[in-house]
């Protein structure tokens, strides 16, 4: 299980990386954390002509709060940085909570935010959180810079809207509404495994009435998705157990899960309903706590 030969190109600036990417015209892969890429190379499921290593590009790993209380995360920030960043924990606790579910320490030490988004695994936490938090993804190429909403960025299983010569350079999480409650729940066979299903939610209450509801699901469709109908059901409503159950059922209706080795489509639907109910209840509790 050894990778096929490739050229190794180390970039010291974004410019160099973009030029190299263009030069190889789709036959090169960007090497950031490599935690998803290298297994594919070792199994020889991928055999690019070149790997363009972007790890040494300075400044690309910054995690910072920017104007409007938004969080800007450079593409080379590692999962472990988000997991332990006090800024993330304070402003985006849901993101903080989700990061602990990403594989294991050694993987989180290397795996990057840009890499996870670009790889777009339907059972990976970061794309789902980007979707939940209405993140804006910055993609750059020699042709210019684009800003893509997460929902436009994630197209399908391992498929994004990135052009061949584009590099994800940053992701921006806009500030959450004040007093938002949140929750995250994941079901995996073992700790650190890819999720069979996971649900995350953010709820904002005004006087006990839902202002905004966001529900994101993963592991249960081609890509992470938002349960828009369920979000709609909650809007403007007061807490009732039946409402939560109805929203969970609605979330469940929105998905198109697969049957694989780990779980059947039916079980995944069942799990989404259960997790959605728990997560909505948890987020509601937190939102009420915030309001109180």
């Amino acid at each position, binding site marked *: *299980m050894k990778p096929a030969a490739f050229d190794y190109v180390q970039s010291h600036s974004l410019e160099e990386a973009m030029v190299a990417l263009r030069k190889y015209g789709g036959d090169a892969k960007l090497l950031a954390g490599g935690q998803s890429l*290298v297994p594919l190379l070792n199994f020889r499921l991928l055999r690019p002509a070149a790997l363009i290593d972007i790890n040494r590009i300075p400044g690309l790993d910054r995690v910072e709060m920017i104007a409007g209380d938004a969080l800007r995360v450079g593409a080379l920030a590692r999962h*472990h940085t988000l997991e332990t960043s006090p800024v993330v924990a304070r402003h985006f606790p849901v993101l903080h909570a989700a990061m602990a579910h990403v594989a294991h320490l050694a993987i989180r030490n290397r795996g990057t935010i840009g890499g996870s988004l670009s790889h777009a695994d339907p059972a990976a936490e970061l794309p789902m959180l980007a979707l939940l938090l209405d993140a804006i993804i910055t993609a750059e190429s020699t042709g210019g810079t684009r800003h893509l909403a997460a929902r436009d960025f994630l197209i399908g299983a391992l498929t994004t809207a990135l052009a061949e010569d584009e590099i994800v350079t940053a992701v921006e999480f806009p500030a959450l509404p004040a007093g938002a409650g949140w929750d995250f729940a994941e079901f995996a066979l073992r700790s650190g495994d890819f999720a069979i299903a996971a649900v995350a939610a953010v709820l904002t209450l005004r006087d006990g009435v839902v202002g905004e509801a966001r529900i994101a699901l993963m592991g249960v469709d081609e890509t992470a998705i938002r349960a828009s109908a369920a979000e709609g059901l909650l809007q403007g409503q007061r807490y009732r157990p039946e409402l939560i159950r109805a929203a969970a059922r609605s979330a469940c209706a929105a998905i198109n899960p697969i049957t694989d080795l780990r779980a059947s489509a039916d079980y995944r639907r069942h799990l989404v309903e259960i997790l959605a109910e728990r997560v909505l209840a948890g987020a509601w509790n937190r939102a009420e706590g915030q309001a109180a």
Partner: protein
Amino acid sequence: MSDCHTIRVSVNGTSHECLVESRLLLVDFLRRDLALTGTHIGCEHGVCGACTILLDGDSVRACLTFAVQTDGCRIETVEGLGESDNLSPLQQAFRDHHALQCGFCTPGMLMTCIDMMKKYPLADDQAIREALSGNLCRCTGYVHIVDAVRAARDRPEESSP
């Protein structure tokens, strides 16, 4: 040989300058080129943790890293911990608690433990188990490994490598 590069790395405090093929996995570089066979290969897809080493102080999978990427880096492997007649406190805790049987996963376990003890409070056994969950052991059922980590955690002054 295809695309090759010269790298300069510090491994357990010793500098090496070597010509490596781009595709050479760090774990093969350590084992074959430097004859540091303490770091083991268990799966080559990042699941088992047997190849875990410290790269600039952070635990990483040497099977998911190319040697060429480590130019200028500081690498620590199990060979850089204690000696067989002078074990490090963590190694000693593993021995005292019988935390290894066949010993194949042990080097990766030790390197992971060093990093996780640095990064997490490991307040209870469940936290220790979670933190160990990226390293598979097929012999011990983890019971004695948890004992060893708990003991090392409780004597931090002795447990730095």
